[in-house]
């Protein structure tokens, strides 16, 4: 049973990214990049399923500039067997990524596609759902637990009020949430082994996908800074204001 995992190269989650002075975007030059943390969780889950015998092969796929090779090497160091890079310097938005993934799914015919629920740069939380729509598979989003059985998968999802468990017929798309697992540390020997694992490079044209972006970013600004607000004189005033002014209690 083949599992496909999609991974994205993003600015390392530990770094505080700032807005460019001219507002045209974020200052990302020379920043450390890393695999999107939710995607790491997705890779971990796929690898665990393989180690448990439920899957036979884990294939990692990424889209973007040549440097995404590093992200795929990380995925292979975590245990993915091989990887595919769809190489382009173009601005890829979720719909385009979903279409590219749909084309790869058609080629690779996996039974499960894992993704992280969202990328920490764009925070769109769309790609997995869009892919599921394009290939008409059921979706298990924000997964905090995955139980693979014969012909179906039970996904426990984190929802606003708590948890919900759905049963999806295979093949299915699953997006990983934070509590699904804790990704393993990558070991030196595994990094060395990963260098020898196969990586295929394709271009969007090879897959016949139109990747033209639909959204244009007009400007990027700092979030509105909270102004130092009013001081209240006493508890009575505080409660009164929270009731009447802020209307929050």
């Amino acid at each position, binding site marked *: 049973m083949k599992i496909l995992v999609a991974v994205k190269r993003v600015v390392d989650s530990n770094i505080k990214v700032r807005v460019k002075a001219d507002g045209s975007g974020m200052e990302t030059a020379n920043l450390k990049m890393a695999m999107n943390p939710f995607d790491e969780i997705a890779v971990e889950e796929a690898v665990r399923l393989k180690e448990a015998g439920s899957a036979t092969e884990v294939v990692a796929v990424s889209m973007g500039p040549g440097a995404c090779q590093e992200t795929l090497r990380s995925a292979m160091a975590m245990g993915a067997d091989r990887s595919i890079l769809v190489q382009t310097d173009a601005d890829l938005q979720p719909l385009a990524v979903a279409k590219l993934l749909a084309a790869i799914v058609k080629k690779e015919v996996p039974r499960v596609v894992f993704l992280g629920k969202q990328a920490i740069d764009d925070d769109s939380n769309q790609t997995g759902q869009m892919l599921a729509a394009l290939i008409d598979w059921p979706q298990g989003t924000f997964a905090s637990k995955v139980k693979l059985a014969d012909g179906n998968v039970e996904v426990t999802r*984190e929802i606003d009020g708590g948890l919900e468990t759905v049963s999806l017929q295979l093949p299915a798309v699953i997006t990983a949430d934070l509590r699904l697992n804790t990704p393993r540390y990558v070991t030196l020997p595994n990094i060395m082994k990963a260098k020898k694992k196969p990586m295929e490079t394709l271009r969007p044209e090879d897959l016949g996908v139109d990747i033209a972006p*639909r959204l244009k970013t007009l400007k990027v600004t700092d979030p509105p800074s909270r102004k130092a607000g009013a001081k209240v004189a006493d508890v009575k005033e505080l409660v009164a204001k929270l009731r009447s002014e802020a209307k929050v209690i």
Partner: protein
Amino acid sequence: MAVLVIAEHHNGRLAAATLNTVTAATQLGGDVHVLVAGENIAQVAKAAAQVGGVAKVRTVDAAHYKDALPENVAPLVASIAKEYSHVLAPATTFGKNVSPRAAALLDVAQISDVVAVESADTFVRPIYAGSAMATVQSSDAIKVITVRATGFDAAAAGGGSASVEPVTATAPVDSAKLLGQELTKSERPELTAARIVVSGGRGVGSAENFKVVAALADKLGAALGASRAAVDAGFVPNDYQVGQTGKIVAPELYIAVGISGAIQHLAGMKDSRVIVAINKDADAPIFQVADYGLVADLFQAVPEMVAELGK
């Protein structure tokens, strides 16, 4: 052209976030229609028809929409979306689950977590976990949007009188089934989902003293959180920690008790709609971000607040 809002509802009631989404819809310049899909949704439809600003409620009553599974709801949305210039859903787990699937069926982009509408095709949304705001313009014929409730006031729940019209159901899809739900019924809501969070910091002084803060949380039906300093000092276990290395929360109301407001803590709660700070140090950095600041001894102020809330 009109604008469609996909309503979220539970147990016969419209979810609050739907009302904020309606407000966003009214800013797009077109009649606002609300789609209510589910099973036995007559009551919800009625409530939707009464929401201020809504011109029409479109309903579908069928078993396969009961569990709000996107495999069924998304095709339904796609089947009527061509009549609309915009399709909005609240940016709740429901909306996030359904909306992108619908967008892909329509072959259009989605703009997630919109906090402001600049014009019919231009929206503001947070990126990089809210470290920045992007103003984004869509060139698609249908704009699919999820709306962050904290960016818009709730529309009036009453006073409207929209018409209610049925919509043809789409064919049932059974590739997904709901097995069950575990909704948090505990006394205290989960930190990252709570509407109100009360957090204690180093100023609370001891694990024993945390009772004082917990009493306020209980009174408000709030989740209980803590600063890193309080966790490091052993007052509470580390899953209470709000902050850069703990949990990121964005409740309606965040009350910081005895918390100085180190930037690492602020990183975890800066998106709260209303921030209240109670601290005896008037210079504490938390007052720079608090909407309401009370310089007082928490051991007096907090019990007093619990009493005042009881009135």
